[in-house]
């Protein structure tokens, strides 16, 4: 089992969801986060005060999958999120120790799908 965490541009969320559904990946957790990568932070101006390095709004996806779903999930995220510009984000893949479905108390690969 793997946990896939992706940081993407907020304006690509709908495309990523669409391509995940097309890849039959239907379980997803989404949160709004702040951060920046190599594109650097934004410059904002308030009454002439220039504020550099402000953190940018990003979307963080968390998807737990069985091993045979990892490739297609990653491909779907890339397909949805990629614009070719700085700031498109990153995908992290972690090993996942355990997964328990609260409703049925099923464990492991059964609980993920």
């Amino acid at each position: 089992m793997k946990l896939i965490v992706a940081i993407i541009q907020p304006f690509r969320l709908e495309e990523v969801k669409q391509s995940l559904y097309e890849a039959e990946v239907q379980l997803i957790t989404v949160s709004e986060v702040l951060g920046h990568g190599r594109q650097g932070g934004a410059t904002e101006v308030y009454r002439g005060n220039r504020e550099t390095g402000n953190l940018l709004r990003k979307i963080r996806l968390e998807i737990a999958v069985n091993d045979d779903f990892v490739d297609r999930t990653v491909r779907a995220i890339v397909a949805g999120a990629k614009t070719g510009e700085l700031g498109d984000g990153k995908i992290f893949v972690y090993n996942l120790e355990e997964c328990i479905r609260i409703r049925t108390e099923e464990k492991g690969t059964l609980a993920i799908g």
Partner: protein
Amino acid sequence: MISNANNAWVLISAALIMFMTVPALGLFYGGLVKKKNVLSLMMQSFVCLLVVSLLWVLVGYSLAFSPGELIPGVLGDFRWTLLNGISPLDPSPYVVSDPKGPVSHLTFIIFQCMFAVITPAVISGAFAERMKFSAFLMFSVLWLFVVYIPLAHMAWSVHGVFAQQGLMDFAGGTVVEINSGFSALAGALVLGKRRNLKPLPPHDLTYTAMGAAMLWFGWFGFNAGSGLAADGLAASAFLATNTAAAAAGLAWALLDWFLQKKPTLLGAVTGAVAGLVVITPAAGYVSVGGALVLGLTAGAVCYWFVVHLKGRFGYDDSLDAFGVHGVAGVLGTLGVGLLATPFITAPFGMNGGKGYAGVFEGNPAAFALQLEATFTSIVVAFFGTLAVFALVQATIGLRVTEKEEAMGLDITQHNEKAYTLIE
């Protein structure tokens, strides 16, 4: 004989000015601070409405506007304590453009009350995010008597030292704007900077924009009500107010665009407020062309002051109460000495029938008086506020602790917070 038409307009104007303090100023300021301090700013405005309203009917109005001379030219007496003996049928002893149609004396009292309410609330912007609530409360009570009431008496009351000489201060360029601006500067200097390394960005500029729009709306009462009549002078002041605000807001936004690359909403609304401030002393004395000149000047000068000059001084006037109200207040009070034209005021028989003229209409003496009143107001506001702050500091202290400042004033001063994250 009371004019019911005039009375209706001035009562509505009083309500419009109340709306400027709460919610307009609370929103304007509240949006500019951190999430953890938004309630403290709204509370400071609200408590001005609560406390000053009571002090005003107790003794404030009497000291400011009664014909007594506790200190000749500066302070009235206690004859109207709790509005003693003032009947609803009594005509106001104060008239401006329609001497034959006075409003009820009680109408004048509540109208003036709202000016006294909003002025300390404007000052609160300079103290944002670091002053104890108890200190602000003590400040606003003392300051009303030490600074506001003497200045209101000097500029507007029957025996006022400047009123008697024919000072042009239609709606409070000295009493409200210079006063709040220079009091804010004195307060910011004594209080010191916020500890937060990064006071920006504002937590919600939509509040600030809404607050500015409501201030503009309320300012029609502030300025067009100050002729105390529902007549042509009210219409003229109304138009001058709208014109100056529009010109200053546009000037600031365009300067942003040319010099900072983008036009900002915060710049446009800040400029508009500067325009409303600058036209306050002048609204009933200048033509619409004069209002346009004043508005453009205020937009440009306040922009230059806030964006370029303020940073070099190193004081923390958190929300630019001085940079907008102090600077534009001086510009307006001096500007009306240049631009006043009897074309506006003579038809109403004002100033003995000859109307009010400024330097450009051949009356250089007008400018000298405006200058003297400006200087006096600055001195009274600045040093009066220093004295009040010294007293508050010596008794209960001014600032919250470092930890309280970091946690925010909402939770540490009021035990509540504005927003929840979950449910």
